């Protein structure tokens, strides 16, 4: 086997389900999710970390999956756009984007949805400034952002209506898996 092609078994909890695949160390998390696990909802727009389309939640926090190696996050928990719906119903953020025409081509949308989901979990009643800052790291070429800002506010409203008080989030590293480390 030539140098650098060794395969590493990577196990993630993706959207609540344990998923595993053996991949080279250089496999980007974005490609791992899309091509090794078949979760194509996470999109790849630039592969240098600027556009934010590939943003997923890693242990609950938004990160660029194109700037993360799958092997690095072996044992951790990942939420993708496919996992945002709650009990089969669209989440407040998904509803907000739909109601406010917060998407056009939809390519950047998964990144915005994941980013906004984590943001509203931590800040359920944000100001205009906070919403702007929260989504300012994601590029959209279609919408001009106005409806995206509106959608995040609307999602906050829906979240408040449907949940009353925000619940503490249920994310966290799965200790047993995460601590395994260094298996490569």
């Amino acid at each position: 086997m030539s140098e650098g092609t060794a395969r590493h078994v990577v196990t993630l909890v993706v959207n609540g389900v344990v998923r595993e695949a053996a991949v080279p160390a250089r496999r980007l998390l974005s490609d791992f999710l899309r091509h090794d696990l078949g979760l194509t909802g996470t999109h790849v727009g630039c592969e240098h970390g600027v556009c934010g389309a590939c943003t997923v939640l890693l242990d609950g926090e938004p990160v660029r999956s194109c700037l993360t190696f799958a092997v690095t996050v072996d044992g951790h928990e990942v939420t993708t756009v496919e996992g945002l719906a709650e009990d089969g119903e669209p989440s407040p953020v998904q509803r907000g984007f739909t109601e406010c025409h917060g998407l056009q081509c939809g390519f950047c949308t998964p990144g915005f949805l994941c980013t906004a989901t984590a943001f509203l979990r931590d800040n359920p009643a944000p100001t205009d400034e906070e919403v702007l800052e929260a989504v300012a790291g994601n590029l959209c070429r279609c919408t001009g952002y106005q409806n995206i800002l509106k959608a995040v506010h609307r999602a906050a409203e829906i979240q408040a209506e449907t949940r009353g008080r925000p619940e503490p989030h249920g994310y966290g590293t799965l200790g047993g898996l995460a601590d395994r480390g260094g298996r490569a």
Partner: protein
Amino acid sequence: MTTKLFGEPVQRREDARLVTGQGRYLDDLGPGALAAAFVRSPHAHARIRDIDVSAALDVEGLVAVYTWEDLPGALAEPLPLLIPHPALTHGRTAYPLAKDIVRHVGEPVVMVVAEDRYLAEDACALIEVEYEFLKPVVGVEEAAQGVHLVHEDVPGNVGAHMVQEVPSRDGRSAAEAIDAAPHLLEFRLDIERSACMPLEGKGVYARWDADDGSLRVYSSTQTSTSVRMAVAAKLGLPLPKVEVIAPDVGGGFGVKIVHPWPEEILVPWAARTLGREVKWTEDRREHFVSSAHERAQVQHVRVGFDDDGRVLGLDVTILHDHGAYTPYGIIVPIITSTQLLGPYKIGAYRVEFSSIYTNTVQVTPYRGAGRPQAVFCMERTLDRVAAYLGKDRTEVRAANFIRPDEFPYDQGLIFQDGRPLIYDSGNYPESLRMLKELIGWDSFPDMKARAAAEGRRIGIGVGCYVEGTGVGPYEGGHVQITSDGRVHVSTGLTSQGQGHETVFAQIAATELGVPIERVSVVTGDTRRFGYAVGTFASRAAVMSGNAIALACRKVREKALRIAADALEADPRDLEITDGIVHVAGTPSASIPLATVAVLSNPLRYAFDEEAKRATQFSGAASMDRPPVDEGEEPGLEGRDYYSPIRSTFASGMHAAIVETDPETAEIRILRYAVVHDCGKLINPMIVEGQIHGGVAQGVGGALYEKMVYDEHGQLLNASFMDFLMPYATEVPRIETAHLETPSPLNPLGIKGAGEAGVIPVSAVIASAVEDAEGITVDRMPISPSDLHTLRLRLAQ
């Protein structure tokens, strides 16, 4: 409940799948397909001496390596010149893989196919191409001097040269009118390169079915029907054996109307050659250096005008940089030169353009397609006229407007569709009145004075445009109502995020009187509809929308005919509401469209309960007539086409208030107002969305985005780090107002809306910055550093 949905802000039907990750974009398809990657030229101009692929052959997972020499038949010929034009005397296109000479950084030289993209890139990195350097030609003015040539057989690097001249009503030429005018101004304007830059790059995925001898191609394209014809021609396949499907497309903005891209024929060819599925997904770096750019022009203006600011003569000479090749012809400079006149009637007009080759990425339409440059030219001109005369800028515009009673108004030019440029309708004075009210034009001087008292600099700007939309030749629609009462609509035209599934469903639901939930729409799939042109030029709603409406009307007429028979009523007394045909005023006398669909298709075999009602012993049919009447066809379906005599002309006016930092020269847009007239609105929510997106791209073009080439033809900012597309923090809130002047040209009275937002933004921002700073802005985009330079120049 009502089925009148036309004109309502109906929520998008695409969104349910797109917000849950269930969209299907090109790279989501074909798991396990082989991956293609390309060795692209690192040089702007060079002769290929040798290609050594031997080192790549050791890469595990390598499947195939192809160079130009491997290409058979028509594949080895240059790519098609899609839009020939008599003025394009020296049109040149690239080979799918470079033959002998590369003419821009990024031109594909070698195609590699491997088990996955990582391995394909590994192989690419090991392929050695030996080049002999040729002198790169960069910069349109240097190129126009013709000292060094991009193509040896194109003297002076001039691909096309075209002059259009419209004399004044009293027969003067532009030169005469300008010379005779009381006032004359002469100046130069510059617009830099930008690009569409959709978030999803291009991509192609092909499957060859050896048993069937057929090919299915998925492409992230704006025209699947034409890609299909191009693939069939290039691969020598019978057209019926090729299917092309545009899946969900992650934005296009023009770049994906060009076809066939090299990859669009190479990938299907490789799939057939290898008997394996092959996919190519363009990455961002490839998109920067091997797709297309737009905008770059140098304009020289001579204008003569009277004391009221009326333009008596206008002469514009344009140097248009079209890059290394001209696959899309000279559409962009044609549009610039013909749409330059905007909402104005000009005494005499002469426009001349030279379309010039440079060793840079080719130039093809980007949203607005030459209009942003045109509007920049005209509006900068009127601002200068106003400044010269000491008049309000809106007053000068009003003095030149075409009046509402002057439509249809013939500008005397030939438009991009080869047809006369005749405006169908519009109300420019009313637009301007609405805009001034929306932005607070008349009270701005007070606001400016108050800001100045606080040490702040603010300025206001304005820009007007007219946009020819809905160009021909045609689009079609097919509508079928099945026996379950569902309505299946298809059109060959593609979508790239505009919400066609929603607006076309609104049209069908309204025309047929059915709930929108029962309507499904398919676009851009040649299996469903084979005849189409494509999505560009703000034409989808106008062209396919009207075609679908006409097809629905055919189906409705047939449904009423069959229902009238069944209800023993006069078809003229029938209405359709909520999918049920009933006699007006007598709701009990009714029949569901589902049943009408059953009756429309007499059957022999009962495969389900509905079908049983249409079989030959069901007693439903008259014994006096054949089951299918003469002149009728089975089924409740219809197909129709819309082919307009010429384009319909939308219009709009924008205004902005900007603030410039006296110290840092940062430019901030405080307010942005849009008055927009695209005729009747199908879905105001979607139209607003189009405007927002267009303005954001316009802000990019005005303040942030440019493609920077060095003298070697290297693109210096081929990444999102340095090509500065605006984030949410850079785009102002956009205030909109709509004027609805219906188009008399089409049944729905609509005009296109897709490109509008982007068109006047550079002109508006330039106008506002100029107002804030008291300097002359003649080049866009403008950065803080540029503004600082202008300040220093003014201070000298």
